[in-house]
C-alpha cells in the first residue's frame, strides 16, 4: 500500500490502516515523549494522547509535508503543552539544580558511558533543563529554535543545556 493510500484509508476512519501508521511512527514519537516527560509511564500516556489527536486531525492533513513530519510536529506540540502544564514545578526544580552544576572533580572515568545509563540519567534530569537538552542535544534543534519552542531566550536555552550536561556528568560519574 502506498503512503498516499494509507493516509486516505486512515482519513476514512479505517482503524487497521491507522494501526499500520502507528506501527511506522510509534517508536520515534514514544521516544520523544518519554524523554520530554522524563518517564516511560508519562511517555506512554502522551503517546496515547498524541495518536488520538492524530486520529482526530488526520482529516486536515493535506500532504504538504511527509506524514512523519506532520506527526512529529503534532507530537512535539503535545509534549510542549505537557511541559508547560508543569511549568510551576519546573521553576522550583531548576532552582535546586544550580547547586549541582559546579566544576566538582569526579572519579576518573575508566570505561565509556553506557547508552542505557545515559537514558536513565536523562530521565532523572530536572524539569526545564531536560527539555532543552532533549530538544538540542538529542533532537537536533538549534538554540534559537529551542528558545522558541520552550518560550525562553536563546541564551537561557544555552545555559539550560549546559546545566543538563553538567548534571548528567554528576549523575553518571559523580558517584564512582
Amino acid at each position, binding site marked *: 500500500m502506498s503512503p498516499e493510500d494509507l493516509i486516505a484509508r486512515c482519513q476514512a*476512519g479505517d*482503524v*487497521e490502516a*491507522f*494501526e499500520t501508521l*502507528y*506501527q511506522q511512527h*510509534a*517508536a*520515534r514519537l*514514544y*521516544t520523544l515523549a*518519554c524523554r520530554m516527560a522524563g518517564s*516511560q*509511564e*508519562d*511517555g*506512554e*500516556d502522551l*503517546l*496515547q*494522547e498524541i*495518536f*488520538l489527536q492524530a*486520529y*482526530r486531525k488526520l482529516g486536515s492533513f493535506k500532504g504538504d509535508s511527509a506524514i512523519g513530519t506532520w506527526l512529529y510536529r503534532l507530537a512535539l506540540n503535545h509534549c510542549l503543552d*505537557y511541559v508547560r*502544564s*508543569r511549568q*510551576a*514545578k519546573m521553576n*522550583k526544580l531548576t532552582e535546586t539544580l544550580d547547586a549541582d552544576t559546579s*566544576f566538582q*572533580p*569526579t572519579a*576518573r*572515568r575508566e570505561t*565509556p*558511558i*553506557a*547508552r542505557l545509563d*545515559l*537514558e536513565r540519567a536523562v530521565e532523572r534530569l530536572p524539569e526545564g533543563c531536560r527539555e532543552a537538552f532533549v530538544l538540542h*542535544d*538529542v533532537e537536533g534543534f538549534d538554540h534559537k529554535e529551542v528558545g522558541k519552542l520552550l518560550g525562553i531566550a536563546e541564551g537561557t536555552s*544555552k*545555559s539550560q*543545556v*549546559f546545566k543538563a*550536561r*553538567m548534571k*548528567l*556528568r554528576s549523575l*553518571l*560519574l559523580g558517584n564512582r
Partner: protein
Amino acid sequence: MHPTDTAIKDYVDGTSDPFERNAVETHLATCEVCRQVVDDLQEIKRVTGTLELREPPVRAWGRIERAIKLEQGNDTARSGSYAFFGKPGWRKPGTIPYWLAAAAVLLLATVVGLRYVPGRNQAGSDGDGVETSASASRAADAIESELRLAESHYENAIKGLEAAAKSDEDALDPRTAATLQKNLAVIDQAISESRAAMRAQPASEPAKQSLIENFKTKIALLQDTVALINEMRKGNEAGAARIVSGLKQKG
C-alpha cells in the same frame, strides 16, 4: 582563572571562535579539573549521539485502539481488528441468553462516571495553583513514589487478567465483547484522566485515590469477565447468573 560555562560549552560543541578556542586549550593544558570536565562532556555528547529509539509497550496500541473505538461510538465488534476482544471465529450472535446483553449494558452503567473531577479545595490546587514550599514538594514526591509502586502492582494484575480473558475470548459473543471493550475504553480513559490530574496536581490525594480506584475498577471488570467466560464455557447458566447478579449489586 577557569573558562566560563559558555566558553566550555562552545569548546565542547566546537562553536568557539579561534581566539576562544586557543584560550581554552591553553587553560586545559595546565588545569586537570577543567580537562576532566571537558573530557566527560565530550563523552556525554558522543553517547547522546548514539541513543536509540525505544519501542512502546505492546499494550500501548490496544489502549489507543480502545479509545478510538470509544470515540467512534462503535458498539459492534469488527472482525480482525480488535487487539483484545473481537477476533474472528466468535460464536454467532443469537446463541447467547438475553441476560448476557443485559449484563453487558449493566457493566457499562457500572463503569461510566469514573472520571476524575477535581474538587475546589484539594491539596495542591490552591488559588495560585503554585506550590513553593519544601514540605509540599516532599509530600508530592512521596505520593508520586507511592503511586508508582501501586501502579506497577495494578498494571501487573491487569496484564495477567487481560491475558486470561484474551486466551478464552471465543467464549464471548460479539455484542458482549464489544460492550466489554467499550467499558474498558471508558476505564482506560478515566485512568488517563486521573493520571493527567496527578501530573497537574502531584500532591493531590483525591487524584491519587481516583487513579487507584480506576485501577481497581478495571481489575474488577476483568475478573468478572474471566469468571463469566469460565461459567459460559462450562455451560453453567446458574453460575453466570450469579456473576450477573453480583454486577447488579455493584451497579
